[in-house]
Structures are given as structure tokens and as C-alpha cells.
């Protein structure tokens, strides 16, 4: 377990207060946040390049915040990789083994496995200047992993790569992680990357940890509007409490004249206003003349298709309700788009499943924080 507790860093104009992080052993943990939020500074403090004003850092039960970087057993792959230009690929890879005086014999099979997974066999005698961008990334990742550090820190490891190569290297890194389970803390602003690689994610916005959880928890159940907006989620609305039904099975909320019926187990209750997020992939467009399931009948709205965009695998539809003129973004697969025969200006009805609602910033979430 890697633990950062109450980390406070003050460096020139940059100030971070009371940062807490927990990384389980063997996890691929992402520190996800917007550019310029101080993520790299946190990373550099964990390595020991900056002395934090306050706070503790535990690595496998040992407090290391007063250790110099070479004694922490944390490897680091910076954004610019910093491959040693005067050393061949092989010397770069073995640097950590030699610096720590580790017995090469014991590490050789493992390193050879890494070299073969990373497909670097033919490049070992080259200097970094003669490698492509993708090859450099692979060498840098391998150099970080070679000495089996207790923690590997990656700073935006996939920036500046072509999408194809980026995907390939992500897969290679995933393969290595699945085989050897190194503990990795990766910093990025790219939430798609975090979604595809992370075991757990810490969302870090405006100098604060906003949410920690699995990728499903973060992306499907963001705790705050801030997190949701950072993740690029749309369909976030402020709704006012109107009434509850007699059996307390449903709560009714007003949204610009629309009456939303939301199951009460999504929030603690007592709120006068909530921010509700409606998942675009859970909204149904109803087929004319077809009977509607009972469960869908609670939230049916009439309206018009204003526009749609082909997003490759799915269509993003901009729908506006007749009443209240509320805009919804709806994602539907291409085949459904064809079957429904949709066009710009077509009048349709949509149904919001219970699964499409998620309530942000409510008391229940605050308690969990």
C-alpha cells in the first residue's frame, strides 16, 4: 500500500494543501485532473524532488518523506521521458539495476520478458536519438519497470503519440501490468486513457481530491458537478423538489416545467434542489405505435430532434422537449438510429429509464466523502 497523507506543498506561486492518496499494491491507479492543477507537483513530491511543507508518505509501511529520492525505490517516467541520450537502449534499461547494485542474474529473466513484451529486442544497441517516439516511450517505461520499484510513477505517459501507437503502447503496458502487477500511479488529464487502463482513479480538481473510486464509480456515478463537468458529461440540470407520492416510492422534481419522477434511493432526501445528470446512453427514443413498458412510463417527454452528429460507433442526438424547451443529448447506436428512421426536425417521444438518472452534489454523496 502506498499512502500519501496530508501532503502540503508550497512551491513559488503553487500551493497544494492537505492532499490524501491511497494506492493499493498492484493497482494501476490514475490521478486524473485538468492540466495545470498541480498533479506533476504531487508526483515530484512523492519521488522526493520537492520537500513538502507538511504530510507523510508511506511506501509499504515505511515512512519515506524524509528519504532522498534514491532511497525511496520509486521509479519515475517524466512526460519528456528523459532517456539518457549518451547511453544505448540497453544501458538505459539496466541503469536502475546498476545504480542500486542489484544482482543482474536475478533480474535478467524478468527484464528479458519485458523486452520481448515491449518488442525492443532489435533496438537494444541503439542510442535514443535513433528511436521513434513510440519506441522511446517503450524504452522509458521499461527502464522504469526494470528494477522492480515499489511504485512506478508515470507523468502523462501517452501524450504526443499518434492514436494508433498510443493504443498499441497502452495495450503493451496493460499486458505488463496484468502479468507482473507493478504498483503504478499515473498522472493524466486524459479521462479516456484513465478509463481504459485504471483499476482505480483519484479525481483531482482545483487542488482538491474530488472523488476516489473504480472507473465505473467515477464515470457512471460522479459525486459532484465539478467531477461530471471535468469528465465532459453533459445533460446536467438543476431540479427543484416538488412533491413525493403517497407511498414514498417516487419523488417529483421540476425541471423548467418538466416533471421528473426520480427514485428516492439516489439521494439522502431533504434537499430542496439537486443537480441531476441524465446519462445520454440510457435515454430511449420511443418507436411510434409500439407499446411502452410500465417501467418507462414515468418519464416520457415529447419533443423534436434538433440535430445529430455521427460519432463513429453511435449517433449523438440533440433533442429538445416541447414543454420547457429543455435540451437533452442522447446517444444511440447506429443500428437503432437507422431502425427509428430519425431525421432533423422529426417529432419523437423519449423515455428516461431509472438507470439514466444520477444525482450530483447531494447529501448522500457528501456523507460518503
Amino acid at each position, binding site marked *: 500500500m502506498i499512502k500519501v497523507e496530508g501532503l502540503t506543498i508550497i512551491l513559488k506561486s503553487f500551493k497544494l494543501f492537505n492532499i490524501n492518496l491511497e494506492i493499493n499494491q498492484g493497482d494501476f491507479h490514475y490521478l486524473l485532473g485538468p492540466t495545470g492543477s498541480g498533479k506533476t507537483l504531487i508526483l*515530484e513530491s512523492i519521488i522526493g524532488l520537492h520537500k513538502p511543507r507538511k504530510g507523510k508518505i508511506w511506501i509499504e509501511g515505511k515512512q519515506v518523506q524524509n528519504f532522498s529520492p534514491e532511497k525511496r525505490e520509486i521509479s519515475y517516467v517524466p512526460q519528456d521521458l528523459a532517456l539518457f541520450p*549518451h547511453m544505448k537502449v540497453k544501458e538505459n534499461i539496466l541503469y536502475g539495476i546498476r545504480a542500486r547494485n542489484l544482482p543482474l542474474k536475478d533480474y535478467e529473466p524478468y527484464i528479458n520478458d519485458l523486452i520481448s513484451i515491449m518488442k525492443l529486442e532489435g533496438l537494444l544497441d541503439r542510442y535514443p536519438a535513433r528511436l521513434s517516439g513510440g519506441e522511446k516511450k517503450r524504452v522509458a517505461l521499461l527502464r522504469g519497470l526494470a528494477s522492480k520499484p515499489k511504485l512506478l510513477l508515470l507523468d502523462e505517459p501517452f501524450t504526443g503519440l499518434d492514436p494508433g501507437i498510443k493504443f498499441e503502447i497502452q495495450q503493451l503496458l496493460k499486458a505488463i501490468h496484468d502479468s507482473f502487477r507493478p504498483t503504478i500511479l499515473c498522472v493524466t488529464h486524459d479521462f479516456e486513457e484513465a478509463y481504459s487502463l485504471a483499476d482505480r482513479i483519484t479525481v483531482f480538481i482545483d487542488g482538491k481530491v474530488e472523488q476516489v473510486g473504480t472507473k465505473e464509480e467515477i464515470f457512471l456515478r460522479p459525486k459532484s458537478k465539478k467531477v461530471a463537468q471535468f469528465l465532459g458529461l453533459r445533460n446536467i440540470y438543476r431540479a427543484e423538489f416538488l412533491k413525493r407520492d403517497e407511498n414514498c416510492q417516487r419523488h417529483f422534481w421540476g425541471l423548467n416545467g418538466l416533471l421528473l419522477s426520480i427514485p428516492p434511493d439516489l439521494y439522502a432526501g431533504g434537499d430542496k434542489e439537486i443537480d441531476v445528470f441524465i446519462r445520454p446512453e440510457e435515454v430511449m427514443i420511443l418507436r411510434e405505435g409500439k407499446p411502452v413498458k410500465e417501467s418507462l412510463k414515468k418519464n416520457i417527454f415529447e419533443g423534436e430532434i434538433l440535430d445529430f452528429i455521427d460519432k463513429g460507433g453511435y449517433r449523438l442526438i440533440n433533442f429538445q422537449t416541447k414543454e420547457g424547451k429543455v435540451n437533452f443529448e442522447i446517444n444511440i447506436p447506429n443500428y437503432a438510429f437507422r431502425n427509428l428512421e430519425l431525421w432533423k426536425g422529426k417529432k419523437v417521444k423519449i423515455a428516461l429509464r431509472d438507470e439514466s438518472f444520477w444525482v450530483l452534489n447531494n447529501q448522500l454523496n457528501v456523507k460518503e466523502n
Partner: protein
Amino acid sequence: MSFRGAMIGAAFGIFLFYLVLILSLFYFVGGKGFWEALLNPYTLYSIRLSLTAATLATFLAIIIALPSAYALSRFDFRGKDLIDAFLEIPLILSPIALGASFLVFFNTPLGDLIQNKGIFFVFEIPGIILAQFATVAGLATRLMKASLDEISPRYEAVARSLGSSPWQTFYLITLPLSFRGLLASVILSWAKAVGEFGATVTLAGAMPGKTETMPIAIFTALASANIEKAVILILVLVLLGIIALYGVRLTGKRFRYD
């Protein structure tokens, strides 16, 4: 004239200016007095003295300049700006003023103590080395700092995280990566030390066969209207300068990894 032509013309103009200056020296080369002047023991002595003193002074300067340059390049500490500004003093101060300051210093009780209990500097060979050291140490620090600034501290950060101590990191990463720039700094500092005149003559005097370095010998040769001797020494200095500059260019070609 086109813009490009004007710019290139200016470059050639400055080149011709120096070329004519150097070629004019050859007007006096080859005469009877010329070879006599070259083989004169005092001339040979001043060449030997200049090379030895400059090499020693540069060596001493590097010992202090390299760690200072590293500190100024890599660390933030109180007084950094002040030190940085002080390094320029030998660059802007007249060399004679620098030499004169030493004379004044050695007349203070502390200077007196150093001379009586340690080494005698005034009008002695150590004075030459001290004067050259004073002129060169600031410059060497400046040049070396510039070369170290070019090397991203991230290399060092990664090496440290991989298990290298600060000393190992300096030796295995920083030094090889900045070697080209550091070597060029050493060569330029050495060339500057060889050519040092003002501070040296003020502190060490101009005694032929004792403290007369090449630049001082040129001055005294001119003062006694010995043109041949002056020319031969100027040519030796020019030759050394060209070798030094060529050495700097050569370091640019080797020790490159990109």
C-alpha cells in the same frame, strides 16, 4: 542591395577586418631579427610561462567554477542573485583595477599575513596565476552555468529515482551530457587566461625571465621598439587562439548524441 546581401556583407566585412589585421603581421615575418627574436631565451621563457601559468590558473578556476556553476544552475538559495551579479565583476572591471585591488589587498594585515606565512604573490609567479585565476574564475562559472542550464534537470531526477546518489548522478549523467559545453568553457577560459595582461602586469610586474608572460612581453617589446619580438609573440598568441577556437568547434562535433 537585398536584405540577405546586406547581412552577409556585414559578416564578410568583419571577417576581412580581422584577416587584414592578422595578415599585416606577416609583413615583418622572416627577417633576420625575426628568427633571433623567436629563439631568444626570454621569448621562449615567456611562452612557457604563459602556457604553464594559464593552465594552472584555469585548472584552479575550474575546481571552484564547476561546483559553483552547478549550484547556480540547479539550486535555489539565498544570495544566489548576489553571487550571480558578482561573477560579472571581473568582466566589467578594468583588469588593471583588478590587479591594483590585489596590490591593495596584500598591503592589508590579512594580505600581509598570507604573504609572510604562505605564498608570496606580489611581483612573483604565483601573482600571475592569481591574477589570471581572478580574471577567469567568474567567466568560467558563467560559461559552465550556461552549459549546465542546457541539460534538463529531469535527467538527474530520473537517475536519482532509479537509485543514483547525487554524486553518482553528477558523474554518470550531468558530466557526460554537459561535457561538450564544459570543455568549450575550459578552452575559452584558458585562452582568456593566456591573453590576460592588465591584472597580471599590475600584480606580478614585467620582469623578463621572471614574470614576463607573452602579452607583457609584447608590451615591453613594443616599448623598446622591438617589432620582430612583438610580432612573433602576437603570432604565437594568434596561433594558440586559433587552436583553442578550433578545439571548441571540434567539441561541438564530438560528444553529440542527437
